[in-house]
């Protein structure tokens, strides 16, 4: 077990290394002076020169990568010329809203999608099943910002139930915090619900065809117990997998949702950095998000051991 975790941990290194090379080469493989691009449009010659020296641009490219990677590993992501502070510090400041939004979204999505998927598989081919599949195609197709405006218009403007936009820190009280977060989380969770419900339905459907389900029913177990303890438990691994894969969609959604709802998180930071062409920040955010994605999927792989006792590494 510990061997497996260690092995799986080591296997993320090549992926992260490739990510690092890609992020690094983002600037180096483009025509133009990397130091000038890094410094931003408003920089003067002296600033560019300082950055050039800092990046080691007079060194061979492999050495440049080494210098850069060495700093990144130590947590030094460079300095944002636009926000005038270290990129690592910037990311730390913007982490709370994004983390809160993502956590609430995943929680809501799983709580809604799994029961829906089980119910659809239980009544396979019925009206509920077809309605859910229809909803899921819609969920994949309605862009997150269109949905966001639809919800703002309906819930905030017409009904006046929730604030239109903005963010309150958890430290300022739980109620304002959750009131500002609930609409963005609903917006973001729709595509996630579509994804998880689809996979839950497919895997539960497959499990329901197994002999042990017939046995469980034959020995007179209540239908609820058959569905949850026997069918759903056996469908847990694919569901966990899709939750992990969905994190990529979630990160993309965060960028858009935070912009619409004016939430000062990492997604908003990404857009601001791009608009300001603040490349140290862009690189830092991409590295950070990719590491989160890889780590979440690592954790999910490890969780298989608990979800499926047959899996022994």
């Amino acid at each position, binding site marked *: 077990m510990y061997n497996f975790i260690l092995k799986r941990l080591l296997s993320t290194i090549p992926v992260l290394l490739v990510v690092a090379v890609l*992020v690094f080469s983002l600037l180096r493989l483009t025509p133009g002076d990397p130091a000038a691009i890094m410094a931003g449009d408003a920089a003067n010659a002296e600033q560019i020169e300082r950055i050039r020296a800092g990046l080691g641009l007079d060194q061979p490219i492999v050495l440049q990568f080494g210098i850069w990677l060495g700093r990144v590993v130590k947590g030094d992501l460079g300095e944002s010329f636009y926000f005038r502070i270290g990129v690592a510090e910037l990311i730390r400041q913007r982490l709370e809203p994004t983390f809160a939004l993502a956590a609430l979204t995943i929680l809501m999505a799983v709580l809604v999608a799994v029961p829906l998927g089980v119910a659809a598989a239980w009544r396979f081919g019925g009206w509920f099943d077809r309605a859910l599949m229809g909803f899921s195609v819609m969920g994949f197709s309605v*862009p997150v910002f269109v949905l966001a405006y639809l919800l703002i218009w309906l819930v905030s403007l017409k009904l006046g139930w929730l604030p239109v936009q903005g963010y309150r820190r958890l430290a300022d009280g739980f109620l304002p915090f959750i009131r500002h977060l609930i609409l963005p989380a609903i917006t973001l969770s729709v595509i996630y619900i579509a994804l998880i419900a689809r996979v839950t339905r497919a895997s539960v459907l497959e499990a329901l065809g197994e002999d042990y389900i017939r046995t469980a029913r034959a020995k007179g177990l209540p239908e609820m117990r058959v569905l949850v303890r026997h069918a759903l438990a056996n469908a847990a691994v694919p569901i966990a997998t899709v939750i992990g894969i969905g994190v990529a*969609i979630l*990160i993309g959604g965060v960028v858009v949702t935070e912009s619409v709802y004016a939430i000062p998180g990492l997604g908003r930071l990404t857009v601001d950095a791009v608009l300001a062409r603040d490349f140290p920040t862009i690189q830092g955010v991409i590295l950070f998000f990719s590491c989160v994605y890889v780590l979440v999927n690592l954790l999910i792989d490890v969780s298989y051991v608990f979800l499926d006792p047959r899996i022994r590494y």
Partner: protein
Amino acid sequence: MKVLANWSVRIGGAALLVLVLVAAAAPWLGTVDPTLFDAASRDLRPGEAGEVTTLEGETIRHVFLMGSDSFGRDIYSRVLYGARVSLVVGISAALVALFFGVLLGLAAGYVRALDGPLMRVMDGIMAIPAILIAIALVALWRATLPTVIFAIAIPEIPRVARLVRALALSIREEPYVEAAVALGTPAARIMFSHILPNCVAPLLVQATYTCAFAILLEAILSFLGVGLSPDIPTWGNIMAEGRVQFVAYPHNVFFPGVFLAVTVLAVNILGDGLRDTLDPKMAKRV
């Protein structure tokens, strides 16, 4: 044909066909130049009449079916012309992703020495969320039609490459490939004449989904203000300009939003239909 008997293919295909025709025939559908503005026709509600001033300085009466924006531009004309951008970007990005994905996938699936290194690079690209890659590339290259297409296509290449590689790995074990190898057929010929034709059906399905995703992503880039220049009417740009006045004039956001959603929905439904008829193995999986 089996494909055309499928209702998802019929509905999605028909909706898409209508959209293509509308986009192509935009100048003849009662539109005006989508960049024309008139200070007298600002912020009109849908259906209100106003006027637009042509480039020659001539003022013509015009009914603003979908209202106007804060510059007095006709939303209806902008939405119709915006369809052109969405469709061009969606289809081109799918083709670019397909082209590079097929090349890389065939190479990885058929040439054993390339498999490891190529697939590790693909894994790395897939570890970065697609929107972030696209945003970063657009920021770097500055947004024009070709750069936006490539920025959207690049994160999609690994998906195609993985698919082709997996197919190639199983097809290369087929007796006819073995026979071709025994006859001394060059590797390139085996890849393109023996393996590739057997990948067409799943690739077509994948291309449809890529197209839907590309249309979405283009709109997102425009909406965030990092995509195509605001002078070009794209659905994302119209929404980005409309969002400022969303509370008072929601139509600026809703009309392009509905067009965008329906288009992506049509492409996705078409993809589901193609998958069910062309690629039953994949249909069973999800």
